[in-house]
C-alpha cells in the first residue's frame, strides 16, 4: 500500500479519526492533514459545556503523536481552496497536494447574525477561539443574550445561569427544537429554561443588534430592547463546502455520498458534519452534526478511501446528547412525526422518555435524565424493532420500576 498519498482536509474530529484509522489499517504511505484552524485537533462538545465553566481543553493528541507516531504532515492554519478531481490535487495556501486517496472532513461553520460584522461582543460558538471569547465575556459579568434556542444556544444559557448571570434567549419559532425533537418535546425541553430562570422568548425575531463598536443592545421585532454586552448566535451551522465549488462533486447541503461515504470522484470520500450520506439503517440520505457519527465516519471513510475494492457501508442509529442546567438530554434515531408518545415520566418533570414512530417502526427515542434507558432504545432501533416492541419494552421497564418502589 505504500507509495500512495493519503490527504485529509479538515483537522478536527473526523479528520483525526481518518488519520488514525489509516495507520491502524496498516497504511504506511505519506499522510497529509490540512486544517484551516491554527490549532491541533480538539474536541468541540466541551466548548459549550465544561470549557465555559472554566475547564481546560487539551488537544486530542499532542503534536509529537500526530507527527511522529502517526507520521502525518500537519498543514495547519491553512484552508484548502480548491479540489481538482481530475488531476487528483488539493490546493491549500500556496501549495498543491497530490492525493491518491482523499477524505473531506471540513465540517460545518456557524451561521452568523446578519449585519453584525465587526461589532465586538457578538459571537458564534463553533471554534476554540469563539469559546474563549464567550468565556471571557462571561467572566467579565456580561449581560447575555443568546439568539436561537437550539442545543448550543441552550448550553450557553445554562453556563451563564450556572454563574448566576441573567440571560435571555430569543427564538424566532414559537417552539424551540421542533426540527430536532418535534413540537411537544421541543416544548418539554424549553420548560427547562424557564425553570432555571432563563428568560426564554419564543416567536420573536431579532430586528437589529446595535452598539458603537461594541454591542450595547438587541432590538427585537416586537419592539423590545434588551441591554447586552454579549450576544451569542446559536442559529445553526452550514456545511463547509465553499472550497469545493467547481470540483464537480455533488453539493446539496453537504457533500453527497453513497452508503460507503464515496463522493463519486475517484478516491474521494467524505466524513463528519460535511457529509450527506445514504444511511442504510433508515434508507435515506442524512447529514448529521453529531460527535459519534463524525468520529465513526472519519474512520470508515479512511479505510474505504484506501481500499475502495472492499469499501464498507456506514450504517448507524444517530445519537447525540446535550447538557442543560445539570440535566442530560439524549436522542437516538430520527425524530419521526407519525407519532410521539411519552412512555415514562412527564414532559413537565425532571425525567422523561419519549418514543417516535414512523409507520409501524420504532424510529427514535428522546430522554431527559434517562441515561439508563437511552442506549437500550438505540439497540432496539438498530435491530429494526417494531413500534409495538418499543412500547412493550417501555411497559416492562415501568413495571420493573414499580416493583422496585
Amino acid at each position, binding site marked *: 500500500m505504500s507509495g500512495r498519498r493519503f490527504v485529509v482536509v479538515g483537522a478536527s474530529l473526523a479528520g483525526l479519526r481518518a488519520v488514525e484509522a489509516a495507520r491502524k489499517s496498516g497504511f504506511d504511505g505519506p499522510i497529509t492533514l490540512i486544517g484551516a484552524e491554527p490549532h491541533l485537533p480538539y*474536541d468541540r*462538545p466541551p466548548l459549550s459545556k465544561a470549557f465555559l465553566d472554566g475547564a481546560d481543553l487539551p488537544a486530542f493528541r499532542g503534536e509529537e503523536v500526530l507527527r511522529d507516531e502517526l507520521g502525518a504532515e500537519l498543514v495547519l492554519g491553512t484552508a484548502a481552496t480548491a479540489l481538482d478531481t481530475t488531476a487528483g490535487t488539493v490546493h491549500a495556501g500556496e501549495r498543491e497536494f497530490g492525493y491518491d486517496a482523499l477524505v473531506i472532513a471540513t465540517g460545518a461553520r456557524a451561521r452568523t447574525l446578519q449585519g453584525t460584522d465587526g461589532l465586538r461582543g457578538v459571537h458564534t460558538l463553533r471554534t476554540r477561539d469563539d469559546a474563549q471569547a464567550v468565556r471571557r465575556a462571561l467572566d467579565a459579568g456580561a449581560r447575555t443574550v443568546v439568539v436561537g434556542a437550539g442545543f448550543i444556544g441552550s448550553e450557553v444559557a445554562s453556563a451563564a445561569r450556572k454563574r448566576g448571570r441573567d440571560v435571555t434567549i430569543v427564538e424566532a419559532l414559537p417552539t424551540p427544537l421542533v426540527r430536532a425533537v418535534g413540537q411537544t418535546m421541543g416544548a418539554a425541553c424549553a420548560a427547562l429554561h424557564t425553570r432555571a430562570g432563563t428568560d426564554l422568548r419564543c416567536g420573536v425575531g431579532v430586528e437589529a443588534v446595535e452598539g458603537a463598536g461594541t454591542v450595547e443592545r438587541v432590538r427585537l421585532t416586537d419592539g423590545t430592547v434588551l441591554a447586552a454586552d454579549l450576544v451569542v448566535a446559536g442559529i445553526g451551522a452550514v456545511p463547509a463546502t465553499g472550497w469545493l465549488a467547481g470540483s464537480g462533486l455533488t453539493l446539496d447541503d453537504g457533500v453527497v455520498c453513497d452508503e460507503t461515504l464515496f463522493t463519486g470522484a475517484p478516491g474521494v470520500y467524505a466524513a463528519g458534519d460535511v457529509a450527506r450520506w445514504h444511511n442504510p439503517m433508515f434508507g435515506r440520505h442524512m447529514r448529521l452534526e453529531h*460527535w*459519534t457519527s463524525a*468520529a*465513526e465516519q472519519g*474512520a470508515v471513510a479512511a479505510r474505504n478511501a484506501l481500499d475502495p475494492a472492499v469499501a464498507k457501508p456506514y450504517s448507524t*442509529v444517530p*445519537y447525540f*446528547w446535550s447538557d442543560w442546567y445539570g440535566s*442530560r438530554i*439524549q436522542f437516538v434515531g430520527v425524530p419521526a412525526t407519525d407519532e410521539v408518545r411519552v412512555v415514562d415520566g412527564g414532559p413537565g418533570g425532571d425525567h422523561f422518555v419519549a418514543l417516535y414512530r414512523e409507520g409501524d417502526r420504532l424510529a427514535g427515542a428522546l430522554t431527559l*435524565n434517562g*441515561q*439508563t434507558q*437511552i*442506549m*437500550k432504545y*438505540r*439497540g432496539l432501533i*438498530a435491530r429494526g424493532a417494531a413500534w409495538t416492541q418499543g412500547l412493550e419494552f417501555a411497559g416492562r421497564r415501568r413495571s420493573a420500576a414499580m416493583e422496585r418502589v
Partner: protein
Amino acid sequence: MKIIVDWNRCTGLGICESLAPGVFEVDDAGDLVLLSETVSDGDLEGVRQAVEGCPTEALRLEP
C-alpha cells in the same frame, strides 16, 4: 482481557453500552456500571469498539 475505566473521564454518555450491552450499563444516576470486568471472547469486538468509540477516551483494555 480486562477493562479499565478512567472514572475521572467517564461522563456516562453510554456509547459503550450501545456497542457492548452485555458489559457496560449506565445506571439511573447516569453513572457507568461494569457488568463484568473481564471480557469474554464473544464480547471482545464490541468492547474494542467501545474503547474506540468512547468520546472521553475513558476506556482501556489490558491483557
